[in-house]
């Protein structure tokens, strides 16, 4: 009785919390197999731990899939890891145009796990150590 009660309560807690895990975040919530490019304008920039976040507004334009248009929440890594890849607090600011490649949320909501940003000169600013299989040293 004691052991099963213990396990029961733990399982209940896990189940209850798992139900709400769909709300956000974990990189297991993103479709890590899909690399999608987004072009937009930065409307919010949060250079902070534990995750750097920025919001980009993708305009409804000709040639752009309507589902792509809107406000996307881009999630990066910690300040410490991103700094090592070349990011700084000043990498982007509100109003800057931005091109990024990332992994969208599995459930279709407008969240992106950042893979890399593409600088105006075409070089890449990676989020962490991961590189695409076909990476060309840029």
């Amino acid at each position, binding site marked *: 009785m004691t052991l099963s009660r213990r396990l029961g309560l733990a399982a209940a807690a896990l189940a209850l919390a798992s139900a709400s895990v769909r709300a956000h975040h*974990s990189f297991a919530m993103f479709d890590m*197999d899909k690399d999608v490019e987004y072009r937009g304008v930065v409307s919010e920039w949060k250079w902070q731990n534990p995750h750097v976040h920025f919001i980009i507004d993708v305009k409804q334009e000709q040639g752009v899939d309507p589902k792509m248009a809107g406000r996307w929440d881009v999630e990066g890594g910690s300040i410490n890891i991103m700094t090592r890849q070349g990011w700084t607090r000043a990498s982007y600011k509100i109003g800057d145009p931005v091109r990024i490649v990332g992994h969208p949320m599995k459930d279709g909501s407008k969240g992106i796990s950042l893979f890399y940003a593409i600088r105006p000169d075409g070089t890449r600013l990676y989020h*962490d*150590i*991961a590189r695409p299989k076909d990476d060309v040293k840029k």
Partner: protein
Amino acid sequence: MWVESTRISKALFAMTWLWPACESLHFMGLCMLIGGAGLLDLRLLGLFRGLHIRHVKALMPWAIGGFAINAMTGGLFLLMQPHLYLSSAVWWWKFTFIAIAGLNAAFFETRLAIPALTMDPDGDTPVALKIVGGVSLFSWFAVLYCGRMLPYLGTGN
């Protein structure tokens, strides 16, 4: 890395709830490990004087159980996202401290277990036991620290 393109890696990683569940289990495992091994280490360091070592050793199966949970969940993390760990210096440090703790424990079991079990429980512990206990306690907390610092000192996640 080639591991990530294998079907098993993708299949596991596609289960959205698996990663958070493994993390929770990993934390529970570490509490079991540090609780059980910690009491033995503190006893070896000379605290809890009067408590016979054989009583403390009754917790070893639980400490080992905690370690086993963490080895399994750790193995799953590695299988799902190997590049985040194998390319991270902090992770190799974590692994190194696990090895130190393990070797230290093996040394205790093979060379010092009999003296520990036969020593006077009311006296102070001999220096050799203090060192083993200290190395163990330090190592496990170093493992914990390295693990927690992976998203900051590591290369990703």
